[in-house]
C-alpha cells in the first residue's frame, strides 16, 4: 500500500458504503417499494472510489446509467440517494430522476445521463466551465466500455483535446455492454490506445485493487490539473451483478467470509482485495476493518428502514396524488 492508514480506511469505508447500499437495494426491491431499473456497482466499487478519493471537493463529476458508486464516492448523501430510489420528495433528485439520474449539486456531482454516451460530451463542457472559473478544478466523466462504441464518445475526447480542457475521462471497462462482450463490439479493444491516437494522455489500471486505481488516477489527474489537458483512465474489473436489476452474483458482506476472501490473492472482489492489502501491510488495522465491515451495513440498513417507512407514510397519506412539479418546470 502506498497510502496512509487513514486513506486506506477511507477507501475501504466508501466501498463498503456503496456495496451495502447496493445490497440494501437487492434486499428491499422485492417489497416493490423501490422500482424501475437499477444498475448496480457490485464488483466495480474501486473504480469510483479510487478515482474520486484523489479528486478535490470542487472537482465535478458526471456519470451514466450505472451511477450509484459515482454519486456516493463523490460525497452524495446516502439517505438522499435511498430516498430517490423510493421516489420520495426528499430524494437527491426529488423523486423525479430515480436510480439512473442521481444528482448532488452540493457534492459537485452533476448527475447522470442514461442514453449513451450522454454524459461524456457533457464532461467536455464541465471541463470548459472548470477552466474558465479559474479554480483549477477538474471535470471527471465516467462512462462504461459500451459508451465508447458511440461516435460522440470520441468526438468528446477530440474536442477536449483541441480546446485543452481539464477533463479526466474514466472508462470503466467491465468487458460487457448489457450482454455483448467488448471484443464482439470493438476491433481495437484497447481504449487507451485509441485515446492516445486522439492526442490524449492515457493510463490503465486493474480496478480490483482500489489503491492501484488511486495511484493511476493521481498521476493522470496531476497531468490534467497542471497542464489543463484531458486524459483517459481505462479501468478494468468484473461486474459482480446483473446488468440491470437487483441481482448480485456474490454473497452479501459477511465479516468472516470477507476476511477469508481477503487472503485470496486472486479475488475479483475489490472490497476483499482492499481488506487483504490493508491487513498485509498494516495488520494492526484489523479491528478498524472489522468495524467498517460490520458497522456500515448496519447503518445503511437503518437508512433503508427509514426511507421505507417514509414511503409507506406518504402512500398512506397522499395515496397516489402527485406533488406539484418543481418551480423550474414552469416558465
Amino acid at each position, binding site marked *: 500500500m502506498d497510502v496512509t492508514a487513514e486513506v486506506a480506511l477511507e477507501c475501504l469505508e466508501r466501498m463498503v458504503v456503496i456495496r451495502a447500499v447496493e445490497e440494501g437495494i437487492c434486499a428491499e426491491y422485492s417489497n416493490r417499494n423501490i422500482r*424501475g431499473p437499477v444498475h448496480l456497482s457490485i464488483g466495480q466499487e474501486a473504480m469510483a472510489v479510487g478515482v474520486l478519493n484523489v479528486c478535490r471537493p470542487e472537482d465535478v463529476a458526471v456519470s451514466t446509467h450505472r451511477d450509484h458508486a459515482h454519486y456516493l464516492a463523490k460525497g452524495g448523501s446516502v439517505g438522499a440517494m435511498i430516498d430517490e430510489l423510493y*421516489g420520495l420528495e426528499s430524494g437527491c433528485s426529488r423523486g423525479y430522476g430515480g436510480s*439512473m439520474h442521481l444528482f448532488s449539486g452540493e457534492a459537485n456531482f452533476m448527475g447522470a445521463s442514461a442514453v449513451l454516451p450522454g454524459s461524456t460530451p457533457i464532461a467536455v463542457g464541465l471541463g470548459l466551465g472548470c477552466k474558465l472559473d479559474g479554480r483549477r478544478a477538474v471535470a471527471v466523466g465516467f462512462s462504461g466500455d459500451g459508451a465508447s462504441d*458511440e*461516435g460522440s464518445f470520441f468526438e468528446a475526447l477530440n474536442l477536449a483535446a483541441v480546446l485543452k480542457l481539464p477533463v479526466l475521462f474514466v472508462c470503466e471497462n467491465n468487458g460487457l455492454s448489457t*450482454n455483448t462482450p467488448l471484443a*464482439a*463490439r470493438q476491433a481495437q479493444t484497447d481504449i487507451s490506445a485509441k485515446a492516445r491516437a486522439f492526442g490524449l494522455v492515457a493510463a490503465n489500471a486493474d480496478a480490483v485493487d482500489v489503491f492501484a486505481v488511486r495511484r493511476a488516477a493521481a498521476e493522470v489527474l496531476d497531468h490534467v490539473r497542471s497542464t489543463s489537458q484531458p486524459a483517459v483512465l481505462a479501468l478494468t474489473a468484473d461486474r459482480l451483478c446483473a446488468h440491470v436489476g437487483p441481482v448480485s452474483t456474490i454473497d452479501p458482506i459477511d465479516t468472516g467470509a470477507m476476511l477469508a476472501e481477503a487472503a485470496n490473492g486472486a479475488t475479483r472482489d475489490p472490497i476483499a482485495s482492499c481488506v487483504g492489502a490493508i491487513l498485509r501491510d498494516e495488520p494492526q488495522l484489523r479491528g478498524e476493518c472489522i468495524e467498517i465491515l460490520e458497522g456500515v451495513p448496519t447503518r445503511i440498513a437503518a437508512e433503508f428502514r427509514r426511507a421505507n417507512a417514509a414511503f409507506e407514510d406518504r402512500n398512506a397519506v397522499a395515496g397516489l396524488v402527485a406533488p406539484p412539479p418543481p418551480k423550474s418546470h414552469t416558465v
Partner: protein
Amino acid sequence: MATRTQAPAATDEKLYRVALREALNEEMERDDSVYLIGEDIGKFGGAYRVTEGLLDRFGAQRVVDAPIAEEVIVGCAIGSAMLGLRPVVELMTINFSLVAYDQIVNNAAKIRYMFGGEAKVPMVIRMPGGAGHQLSAQHSHSLEVIYGLIPGLLVVAPTTPEDAKGMLKSAIRSDNPVMFLESMSLYNVRGIVPPGDYTTPLGKAALRRSGSDVTIVGVSRMAVLAHEAAKQLEEEDVDAEVIDLRSIRPIDWEPIVESVRKTGRCVVVEEGWSTYGVTAEIAAGVSERCFDYLDAPVRRLGGAQVPMPYSLPLEKASIPTSENIKQLVRAVVGK
C-alpha cells in the same frame, strides 16, 4: 416464393412479441435479402426477446449483433438497402433512436426523392416506446410524432398481435423506410394470429368498435385504452366508436372522417405530448374535413408535458388512463 414455416391453428392466441418473431422468421425464410441488425439481438435474443432463436436459425450474417452505435447501425442499414438488401433494424427503445435521428431524417427519408426516384431504401426500424415502468425521463417517451412529421417515412404503430405480424411483413416488403413503433406494454399482450402467410396493409386505420355518439381515435397503446373506455362507457349510455390509428404516416383520413361525420364528436388520444403531437394533427385534420358536421370541438388527450418523472405517483399522473379518456368523452358528449 412463399414458404409456410408453421401452420398454427385458426384460433391460436399468441403474444405480440411472438407474432413479431414469426413475421421475422417467415420473411427471412421467404427472402434471403432480409437481415437483422441491432444491439444484443443475436445471442441475447433482443432486449424484449423478439429476435430469440433467429441467430441459431439464420446465422451471424443475417442476425448481426452491433456495437452500441445507433447512428452507424442505421447508416449501415441504409447503405445496404440501397444495394437491394432489406435490413430490419432493432433499436432498444425509440428514445435511443434520437442518436440516429440524423441518418433517419436526412438519409433514409430523403434518398428516394432526392435522387429523383433512382435509388430506394427498403428498410424497417423496429423499436418500442411508451411509459409505465418507472424508467423515468430518458427511457419512457412515445416520440411517434418526430417520425410522423417527416415526408419520406412510413410510420406505423400496431396494437394487436395480428397487426404486429401482418404489418411487420408488409413493412419488410415495402420499398420505403418504415418506422415500426412497438410498445413496451404490448409485448405481453395475447391475441389471435391468423394462420399462414398474410400481410396487413400499411397506411390503414382500423375500426375497433362501432358507435354513434362520439368517435375516439387512439394512437398506439392508447387505442387499446380507448377501446376499454368505450366498453365501460356503454353502462353510462354513451355509445363510442373507436378507431385505432395504426398508421401515423400517412394518416388514413377516410374512416376517421366518415366516423366523425356520423357521430359529430371526436376525441383523440396519444401517450406522447399532445402539443404539436399526433393528436394535434388529427384534431386539425378532422376540424378541416368535418367542420359542418361537428357538434363539439375536437378534443385531445396526451401525456403530461414534462420529461417522464420516476416516482410512481408522478408517473401515473403523467400517463393518460382509460378514466381520463372517459372523463373527456363525457365532457364532449355533454354528460
